[in-house]
Each structure stands twice: as structure tokens, then as C-alpha cells.
């Protein structure tokens, strides 16, 4: 199953300090819903303010993106810039 890594303190506040977990979801959108079911409020926070890195490649607002079976998914703040 894909592994979700939560490196920032903001998201860990939703998980009670849990920094790694496995998910059954196979897309980013399903992962967001699963996270929200397991940690109420986290899904909304991820949807609005976080990007995901899937095996090192950063995706923002990409619900349809597939999560490979053994992928490492890292939640990071959305990146803006100038």
C-alpha cells in the first residue's frame, strides 16, 4: 500500500503526532478522503493548503493522479512564489 509521510508540524497536529501511515487509496483524491475519514479535518487542510510529492515529483490539486502500489507520498505545503 502507498505510504504517506507527514513531515510538517501543522499536519501532524491533525494526526496526533503520527508521521507515517499506509493508505488504501489509489489516487490523490481518494487519499484526501481517506485521510479526512481517519483524521477529521486533515483532508480539508490537505485539499486547500498542501501539495503531495509522489516518489519525489510534486503535484498540486491533482486528484486524479494515481498512487503506485508502493509509492512514497509526502505532504508538503503548496508552493507559490513570485
Amino acid at each position, binding site marked *: 500500500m502507498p505510504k504517506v*509521510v*507527514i*513531515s*510538517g*508540524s*501543522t499536519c501532524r*497536529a491533525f494526526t496526533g503526532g503520527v508521521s507515517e501511515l499506509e493508505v488504501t487509496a489509489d489516487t490523490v483524491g481518494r487519499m484526501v478522503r481517506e485521510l479526512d475519514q481517519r483524521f477529521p479535518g486533515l483532508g480539508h487542510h490537505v485539499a*486547500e*493548503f498542501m501539495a503531495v*510529492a509522489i*516518489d*519525489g*515529483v*510534486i*503535484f*498540486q*490539486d*491533482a486528484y486524479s*493522479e494515481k498512487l503506485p502500489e508502493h509509492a*512514497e507520498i*509526502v*505532504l*508538503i*505545503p*503548496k*508552493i*507559490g*512564489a*513570485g
Partner: protein
Amino acid sequence: MTYIGNKSDLRVVGTRPDRPDGVDKVTGRAIYGADFRLAGQLVGRILRSPHAHAKIIKIDTSKARALPGVKAVMTAQDMPNITSEESFVGEGPTNFRDQSLNVMARDKVLYEGHAVAAVAAMSPSIAEAALALIEVTYEVLPHVIDVEEAMAPGAPILDETLFTAGVDPKPTTPSNIAKKIILKSGDIDAGFAKADIIAEGRYVTAAVHQAYIEPHACVATIGADGQATVYASSQGHFMIRAFCAKLLGMEISNIRVIPLEIGGGFGGKTIVYLEPVALTLSKMAGKPVKLVMTREEVFRASGPTSGAVVEVKMGAMKDGTIVAAQAVLKYQAGAFPGSPVQPGLMCAFAMYDIPNVHLTGYDVISNRAKVAAYRAPGAPISSYAAEQVVDDLARQLGMDAITIREKNAAKAGTKTVYGVTFPEIGYEAVLAAAKSHAHWKAPLGKNQGRGIATGFWFNIGGESSASVFVNEDGSVSVVSGSPDIGGSRASMAMMAAEVLGIPVANVRPIIGDTASIGFTNVTGGSRVTYATGMATVQATEKVIEQLKQRAAMIWDISPDAVDWKDGQAVPAGANAGGFDPLSLAAIAAKAGKTGGPIGSEVSVNAQGAGPGFGAHICDVEVDRETGQTTILRYTAIQDVGRAIHPSYVEGQIQGGAVQGIGWALNEEYIYDAKGKMDNAGFLDYRVPVASDLPMIEAVLVEVPNTRHPFGVRGVGEVPIVPPMAAIGNAVRDAIGIRMHSLPMSPPKVRKALDSGQG
């Protein structure tokens, strides 16, 4: 489809055609925000706070309203009172309540220059007379400007409802520290215990402005039916539409924003200041209203980037392996939360593979204008400190400054402190290019020094739209939703021409307004050539499919039997028939008979923008009598993926380097004891000019990003990350003293030479 292949196969991409907007810009025909006018427009002016921090007790506008020629007077009471709502609009997280209060103060003014009222009148003199007639009663409050003073117990509190986020347990008393962020990996104590040497330093940076030449400007008009049009220069007309709708309680469909030419943004035009005010005044007056900031207003009321205090400590083994890195970042946010401390943390050590890292960041409000994005927001500040500490490690070890970076370089597979494992990246290629460049080994003279520093930025993709259509004569129009700041029109035209196999002169690129093209995110984050380029390429490919179908119809054969080659339809093989090629013009001429106009629009949410890395080498000479630092030679090396128009790419790199040079040597916000900015003009806020600088040599390293059809990576952010540390390292090399604060202005350097401490 990918076109990365062999670079020599490309006919248009990688060449340097004349820019499509060049003639208009050099002849003055281009229409910028301040140039635009509508018949019957009124002149808008904004009254701003003379105090750094004060309660608004009362605003009496009666005398201004009574002045002949005044058509509207507004305060925050004429705008919706927005409740706190966080979102991600423009170029970063934002709170709509804060945005509204920044546009027009309601109960308190939080910085000198904060807007408190606005007027629309028949002439500039009437508008200014009206401002003088508005009576504002303030209760002046103690203010705080400095970031560490704002964090200290007992500091004047700007927002009694603000409690530090990221702290457990949740604080019970309000604070100017909006957020505390911690990022860590490994075991920092064990890492330092393993280190043979330690280097550390406390560095201070000043708030600096993006210093775009064109001031903020707009014309807004709204009819009795509620249909509004805004003409404005910005980094994103869809962003203006979104903010105006939210801040004014309007439907998005009732607002059309038409982009005008933009005279520089660098991140500072990714939010709104004037447009909601102009719309409100226009609604009240029933006429178009034009607002243009003065230069003073630009400095006092539009966002600079953060000033900061950064403390860095790093440990290395005798062989140069860096085993521990720690930093504390304290960033000014201005009057409302939202400094770029988060990316500052993420970028500080991103160039290196370090097993033990601990980063702490503070987002701190104070009585300054709210900060706005500025190229690679946050990264130049943290890198300025970190890259000088890396230099100190190399000095302690007697190691070449590039060699220590090579030894610790991030590469594919390196895990960053924020958890992401890097894919294929070009940092090692950049270092190799720097090491082999003649500049690195060139001799230096007396009082001269050389420094190098490197930098990282994520780059982004995001939502973009583009349409491509074939005109009746076979020429091609490309419409995108991205305001052109860094040459995107040229890049879009070139990519479309390359895919079509036609000369770029046959392609006319324009920017569509919010009603004529699909949603497009702001021009920022080095995303446009990547994301909008992706949309353009895909739209062009769809056009080619249509062209092949039309050719098949003309030849009465199957579309599968038609190829597109060198800008023409050709039979796919001998069995397809012996037809002469059909040119784009020939197919376009028969478009009406073969199905109608030929064109396609594509919208994408581009993902996987490749990270960028750069290395800057700088030579300086320090005048020991005056303390003045002169840049003698400057080389900027960067992985750009694939340069579509190399001149524009070089220009981005040169521009970033020059802005960094200004940040390093001259630029700073200076406040007096009352919290008022002392140098709100280009006479006293000194940006580098051509005569201050040598030619900046830009070296393009091309490691294509395989997720883009042509291998593009963003280029506009990275080049402002290394300059301050590169110059700091060069000054250290020249005078033997490490300078610890920016700008390294002549008085500071002179003082350091006298005292022996920087």
C-alpha cells in the same frame, strides 16, 4: 508527445527571434496600467495613515463629499466586512479578511501608509483637496517594527485575536508570532556530536521591495446592472477577478478583467490593492475610476519581502562531509500573517544531502506593510545565511568552496528535510559547470575577493489555458491566459511554431482576458513556460490533427493516411496516393468548405515541474577608504531544463542576479522612531543601475525535465537565491571579515574595517 529528443533537430526552440512585444515597448505604443483611460473616467485618490499603529476612532467625510467635483467618497464601511477565511489564491495562502483589511483599514491602522479612505473626483487637484478634507480621528498606539522586538514579551500587540499556531499547548495570550514551524530529520544532537568542526552565524536581512518600475494602476467601471470591467496590469487577471469577487461580494461572472502590459512584478503583483477600491468608487459614482499609486505609495503600502534574522549552525567531518545543520528563521510578515518563512525553511539546506537537520521558523507580524511574494519567496534569506556558513566550513577545512558543495550535493534519491526524495536534478551538473568555468580560477588583485553560493527553488506548474487557431491566410494566433512578464508570448509562439513546423513569424501570440480564455493561474512561481507552454503544445497538436483531417477530406483519403511534416500535410506513404503537399495556408483557405474554422483550446493543471538549481560566482573589490563594494565580475550558472528562447532565459538570470546585488549591497527599508519609512523613493532607496554593474554572464545548463514536451524547467526564481551569499562570501574573501547583516552598504563595511567585526 515529447520533442526533447535531439536539440539540433529543433528549428525554432532554442533560437533567438525578435520579441513580439519589443517594438511596442521601445516605441511607447504599449499600454501599461497607468496609460489606460476610459471616456469620462474619474480620478481616484487614497487617504493613508500617517501613523504606524493607531485605532480609528472616527472618519468624517462630510466636508469631502460636499466639495464640488467630488463624485464619491468611501471608507471600509462601504465594503463588506469579511470574516476570517483562509484560502490559497494568487501565489500563496491568504486570509480574505486580512486582504480586505489591507485594502482598506476598518478599526485600526497597522502601518504607515495603510489606506483609510478614498475619493473619486473630476480632477487630480479636486481629489487631493478632498483627501485633505477627510477628518480621521486616531488614537495612536505604541508600534513595533523590528522582528525580534515584535516577538519579545511586552511588545505592542497588533491583533488581540492572534494566538501563535504550531505551539502545544495552544497559547492563552495573544502574540505577534503568528506561527511557529519545525522541520527536522535525523538526530541533530547526534549529528553535531559526530562533527569535527562547527561553523555558525547570526545573520540579519533588511526588508526589500520588488522595485518594479511600473506602479500599481487600474481603471474600473461598473454599470447599473452590476457588470464590471477592470483594466489592470498585474501578474494575474484571474487573480484580480477572484479577489474582487470575494472582497466585494460579487459574482465572478459579473467581473471581467482585461490585462494591460505590466512593467515588472517579481511577485509583488500577485495580490490586489487598488482594484476593489476602484470598483467601489465606480459603483458609487456611476463612472469609471482610475487609481494609480505614486512611488511613495508603492513603497509604503505595497508588499516588500520580509526582513529577517537567521541563525545557522552546521557541523562537518574532517573530510568535508556535513553531518548536521540547524537554523532558526524569524521572518517579518508585515501587518498580517503570511511571511515566506515556510519555503525559507524548506530551501535553506535543500542543495545538500545532510542526515541530521533541525529547522525552526517564526512568522511574525509588525507595523510594516504586509509582505508580498518576491522571486523564490523566503529562499534568498535562508540561503544567504546557510551558504555563508558552508563557506566558513570550507575555510576551516581548507577546502575548495565548490568541492565541499560537490561532496555534499543533493542528487536523485536525496531525501530533503521536508520529506521529498529528489527525482533527477541538475545540481551536480551546475557545480561541475561552475568548477570548469574560467571565472573560478581567474586571478584576483589587491582588495579583491571571490565568492560562490548556490540556490534552489521548487518551481511549480498549475492551471493554465491556451488556444491556438489558424487564420484564413494560414497564419496562426496563440491566446493564453498568462500575463507576459518574462517573455511568455515569445515562448508560446515558438513552441507552437516548432510543433507546427512553421516560422515563428507566422504565429501571433496574445493574452486573453478573463472572458475570452479559460482560467489561468498567476504568472509566478516560474510556471508559465512550463504549464501554459504545456497547454499551448497540446492545443497545437490538436490543431494538427484537424489539419490532417482537412487534408484527408481534400484528398478524399483516410485521415490515418496523412502525416504532418515541416508545416505541411503529406501522404503518409506510397499507398496513400501521389498528392502534392498541402501547406497550412492551402488548408486554411479551404477551411470553410471542409468543416469551418480550425482551432483548439486546451486547459491543463500541469504537474511535476522540475526543481531548479543555480550557482553564482562573484568577484568584488572593496574600497577600504570608503567601504564601497564594487562588483567586478559575475557569473550565474543554472539548470534551465531546456531554454525555449535563450535570450529571455539569460535575461531572467541576469535580472535575478541584479536584484540580488541590490539586496546585498544597497537596498533596505529605513524607519524613523515613529515607525515611518524614511526612504520611500528611488533617490533614497538605491537599486542597482547599469553603471553599477558588470555584464552578468549567464551560463545555461540544460538537463531537460521529461514531464514537459520540450524539457522546460522554471527559471525566474532560482537566480535571486544565491547572490547575497555569493557577494557576502566575496566580501569576506576580500577583507577577511565576515559581514553579518544586509545591506553591506559602505558605512557598514567601513565600520567593520575599523572594528574588525562585521
